[in-house]
C-alpha cells in the first residue's frame, strides 16, 4: 500500500479544504487596534512635521493625506481579510493551520512530531481576552502558530495537544 501510493494516482485526489475552526471574532478588533496604533505613530510624526516645519507646504500635506488614506484602507481591509483566512483544526494524527492575508500559508504537522505546545498573550491581547498558541517541532522552521484564539479555546487546545503528544514519546526528529 505504501509503495502503491508513491505512483501518481490516476484520478485527482480531492482538494485540501481550509481548516474547520475560525479564530475568535474579537481578533478582528484587536488586529484593527494594533494596526491603528502603528499608523497613529506615523501620522502624529507627520502632523508634527507639518506644524513645526511650516515652510514645507503642499508636499507635507500630500504625504499626510496619503498616509491617512493608506491607514484607513489597511485598518478596514486587513483585519477582516485576515479573519477570513486565519483558521485551525486538530485531528487525531495532525495539526493544521492557515494564516496570513495578502500572502497565505497552510501548515500541517503530524502530532507524533510535536515537541512543545505554548500559549502566549501580550498586554493588548489580554485586554481582548485573546491568546496565541505555538506548536513547535524539532525543525527550527516548523513552528505552527495560531493567533487570536479565545483564551479558553487556547487553554483547551494546549491540554488536548499536550496529552496527545505525551502518548508517543519518540525522539521526534
Amino acid at each position: 500500500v505504501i509503495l502503491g501510493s508513491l505512483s501518481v494516482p490516476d484520478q485527482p485526489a480531492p482538494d485540501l479544504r481550509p481548516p474547520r475552526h475560525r479564530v475568535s471574532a474579537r481578533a478582528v478588533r484587536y488586529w484593527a487596534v494594533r494596526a491603528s496604533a502603528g499608523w497613529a505613530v506615523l501620522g502624529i510624526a507627520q502632523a508634527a512635521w507639518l506644524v513645526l516645519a511650516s515652510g514645507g507646504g503642499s508636499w507635507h500635506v500630500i504625504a499626510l493625506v496619503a498616509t491617512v488614506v493608506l491607514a484607513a484602507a489597511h485598518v478596514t481591509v486587513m483585519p477582516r481579510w485576515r479573519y477570513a483566512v486565519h483558521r485551525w483544526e486538530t485531528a487525531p494524527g495532525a495539526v493544521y493551520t492557515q494564516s496570513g492575508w495578502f500572502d497565505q500559508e497552510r501548515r500541517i504537522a503530524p502530532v507524533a512530531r510535536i515537541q512543545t505546545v505554548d500559549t502566549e498573550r501580550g498586554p493588548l491581547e489580554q485586554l481582548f481576552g485573546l491568546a496565541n498558541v505555538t506548536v513547535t517541532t524539532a525543525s527550527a522552521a516548523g513552528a505552527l502558530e495560531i493567533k487570536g484564539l479565545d483564551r479558553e479555546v487556547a487553554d483547551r487546545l494546549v491540554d488536548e495537544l499536550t496529552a496527545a503528544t505525551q502518548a508517543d514519546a519518540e525522539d521526534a526528529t
Partner: protein
Amino acid sequence: VTAEGAAPAPPPETPWRRLSARMLLVHPVQEVVRAMPALVGLVVAGSGSGQGGRWALIGVALAIAAGTLRWFTTRYRVTPEQVQVRRGLLRRSLRAVSRDRVRTIDVSANPLQRVLGLVRLTVGTGLAERGPRGGGVRLDGLDARDATGLRDALLHDRPRGAAPGADQTAPEEVAAETELARLRPAWLAYAPFTLSGVLTVGAIGGFLINTADDLHLDPRHLGIVHRAGDVLGGAPLVLAIVVALLAVALLVAVCSTAGYALAFWGYRLTRHPSGTLHVTRGLLSTRATTIEERRLRGVELTQPLLLRGAGGARCDAIATGLGAGRGAERGTTLFPPGPRAVAARVAADVLRTTEPVTVPLTPHGPRARVRRFTRALSGSAVIVAAAAAGAIAGIWPDTVWEVALVTVPLAAALAADRARSLGHAVTPTALVARAGSLVRRRAMLSREGIIGITLRRSFFQRRAGLCTLTATTAAGRQAYAVLDVADDEALRVCDAAVPGLLDVFRGESG
C-alpha cells in the same frame, strides 16, 4: 587508563582527566598571540616613560601564566551517562552533555598542534547551533590517540543499544571501513571555479591599500606598478581594462586554488560499519568530522554557476545536529568541489540508493516560468526606471540609464536559467527538489526526516495557481522548498512524500 578503557566497564566514580601535558607548549603561545594587540599597546603606551620594554615583558609573562593556568584548570571525564568538562579558577563552570545527545564529533588540529600530536575535539549536540555559546563541548588539546579512543567510545559504545544499521555480528573488531571517495589532485582544476579566493584577494587588496596609505607610499613610485603603467599607458583604455581584469581573475584563481588545497587536501570519505561516516581533510590544519548515519536526513548537491559551467558539484550532508553552511562549527561537507559525476556517485553511496540522484525531475511548467521572468524583469525594470528618472531630472548623465538597460538581458537570462533549474520528484526514500541559478541546489531529503509541511501562496502565486511547498525537518537548513509548483501537483507530492498526512483534511468539511 584512557577514556577507551573507561567507557565499557565504568568504575562507580570516573576520575577526572587533564588535557595532554604537551598542551602546556601550545596554550601559552596561543595566549600570547591573542594578547598581541594589548602587548603592542603596552609598548607604545610605555615608550613615553622609556619603560615600554619592561611593561611588555610583564604582559607576556601574564599571558603565559594565563595559558598555563588554562591547562591546570581544565579537566574532563566521560561517565557512563555524560561527558563533563570543568573549567576556570575563579569562575568555575561545569558543562555536561548527555551521551545519548551526542550527534557529531569533530576532530581538528592546527599546524602547531599537529607537530605535537595534539587535536581539538568538539562534541556536537543537536542544539550546537542555536545557543550563543552552543550546546556542545570542546576539548582543546587532547592527545591524538586519546581523541580517537574517545570518539569511538562516544559514538560506538552507546549507553543504550547500538546504532541501528550496525552490523551486530562484528561489533568492535577491526572495523573495516569502506572508502567512498578520496581527493584526486586533478580536482584542483575545479578550485578556480569556486571563487573562494575572491574574499582573500579583496582582503589582501584592502590591506595593501591601507598599508600604502599609512606609509604615505604612492603606488606609482613602485617599480612594478610603474613598469605596468608604462606598458599599459600607451595601450587603448579597453585593452588596459581587459588586462587588469585578467590579472585580477588570475589572482583570484590562484588564491582559490590555494584555499582549496588548504581545506581539502587529503580529503577522504569513509563509512564505518558501526553506522558512521567519517570526513577527513586539510593540508596544514586537519579536520575529521564524524556523522552518525542515523542522524543523516539526506544529501544536498550544490552547483554554483561557474562550477556548474565547468561540470562540477559539491555535496553536503543534511544531518540533525549539523547546521547548513561551511563555517568553523559546521561540518557538513561530504564532497569538495569536484566532477559532478563523482559527486552524484558519492551522494548515492551515502544515501545507499541511486534513485534520488538519478530520478528525472518533474519540471514546474510554463506558469512557474512566467513567474521567474516577471520577478527578474520587474527587478531590472525598477533599476532602469530609476536611472531614467535620474536622467530626466538631470541628476545623472544619459549613460547611466543606457548601462542600466544591460540588466534587462541579464535578468532574462537569469530567469530562463532559474526556470530550467526548477524540478522535483518523490522516490521511495526521498523528496527531491531542485532550484536556483547562481547557486543551483538539489536537495534529496529523506522522507522519514520530514516533520511537517508548509504550503505557502503569495497573492500572485494564488492568481497563477501555484504554491511553494516546504518540507520542514530537524536537519540542515531546517526547511527544504519545492518552489512554485502547481497546486494539485503540490498535494500529490505531499501524498507521496508523507502518505496519509493530508487525508483527514480533504473533501468537503464532512
